[in-house]
């Protein structure tokens, strides 16, 4: 999941921003949100997993 989020974040950064600094900021923000949502959904499913 971490690798997937990393690759997609890099692609999104290059896709949607033009300046290098903006790209890095967007990549980090996108990566953080990917991980947050992934882990959040994982925990949200926890009560139903047993």
């Amino acid at each position, binding site marked *: 999941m971490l*690798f*997937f989020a990393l*690759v*997609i974040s*890099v*692609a999104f950064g*290059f*896709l949607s921003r*033009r300046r290098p600094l903006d790209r890095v900021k967007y990549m980090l923000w996108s990566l953080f949100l990917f991980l947050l949502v992934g882990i959040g959904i994982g925990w949200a499913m926890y009560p139903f997993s047993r």
Partner: protein
Amino acid sequence: MTEEIQVPAASQATKNRETFALACGFAGWLVPGLGHALQKMWGRAIIFFITVGVLVLIGAGMRGNVFNSDGGDAFASLGYLADLGAGSFYLLAKKVEPNGADVSRAGGDYGTRFLAAAGVLNLLSALHAYEAARGRKG
């Protein structure tokens, strides 16, 4: 008189630009990053080639499902459309997977998602190349 001459010239330029934009979009779909490379956007071209290529290779290496056109249900058809988005890399995925998919393991299931994500990402990239060639995006 001057306006009469300039209007057809502008129209022709617009037509040429639209044709070039369509060619960039198609090239970007066929080979990830090629649509940007034609516009000398080297950074984006390399990144899209690498990211789509890596996703396809890992997805196929994990023996993810590469869908065919004869899908039995709506999900298989949607999966086929997503996979087809990778353009020529769709064929590469089929070559990398000579033994076919194995989604009985979690790895195969993850691989299927990697392949679908590669296809959709490449479609986004091709659309961006088309829009950039039309002058709508930087």
